[in-house]
């Protein structure tokens, strides 16, 4: 009996893991509370802009490099065209706050302590970033982070900004 339940649970887990958001798919909408401020922020608020959704955590060592480098990336593009939403996945938000004090960011950092949004995106690794076009379609996905990844991101963002909103 318990074995059958266990098997079913394993199958469910395997099925759940299969639903990952791939380039070409519509980004799942979400609404989260930022670390700074009380009003929740939705992805839908950014429709019409190119958005980088980045998933990070204080315990993720590449994130020590990526989060500070994204400050420069945000500065390279006008805020009217490009925005970064950094989704923090620490279960304990104090850990995330301490990390942000050590590595301050000049873009929007959001709290997802239960990992609901990570689940919706079907994250395959830490960190993960998704580049979303003006129409809300995922155009680029990257897992892991190396400092030179910034250059590829810059190229993709430039190309997506150049495209008019209707062309998707």
């Amino acid at each position, binding site marked *: 009996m318990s074995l059958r339940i*266990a*098997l079913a*649970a*394993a199958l469910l887990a395997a099925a759940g*893991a299969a639903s990952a958001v791939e380039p070409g798919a519509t980004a799942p909408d979400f609404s989260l509370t930022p670390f700074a401020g009380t009003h929740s922020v939705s992805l839908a608020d950014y429709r019409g802009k190119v958005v980088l959704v980045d998933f990070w955590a204080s315990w993720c060592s590449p994130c020590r490099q990526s989060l500070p480098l994204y400050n420069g990336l945000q500065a390279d593009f006008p805020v009217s065209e490009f925005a970064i939403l950094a989704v923090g996945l620490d279960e304990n938000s104090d850990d995330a706050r301490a990390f942000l004090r050590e590595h301050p960011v000049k873009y929007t950092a959001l709290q997802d302590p239960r990992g609901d949004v*990570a689940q919706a995106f079907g*994250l395959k690794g830490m960190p993960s970033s998704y580049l979303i076009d003006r129409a809300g379609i995922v155009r680029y996905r990257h897992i892991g982070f190396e400092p030179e990844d910034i250059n590829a991101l810059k190229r993709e963002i430039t190309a997506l900004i150049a495209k008019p909103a209707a062309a998707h």
Partner: protein
Amino acid sequence: MRSNAKSRRSSPSQPLRTKRALRWLLALIALVCLGGCAMQAVQPWQRGRLARWDMRWDPDPLQAAMNQHAYFSKEGTSGEIGAAGGGCGCN
């Protein structure tokens, strides 16, 4: 069955030991199943505790090396997971 019971009475220690060993084996299989069969996938964002310093196999490699060196020089058998370093005249 009956003869089995008789032999058990005549030498009680041997089958008892086998039974105990069998029970341990069953417990081990159950443990492996708990770990493997019914395991729920741990998602990438749920690995914060596993990434902690004190969750590493060897949190302090210098300390581990010195411990292994002391045990290696005192004991007749050795070996740990990982490529072994060089020997010494101590053993």
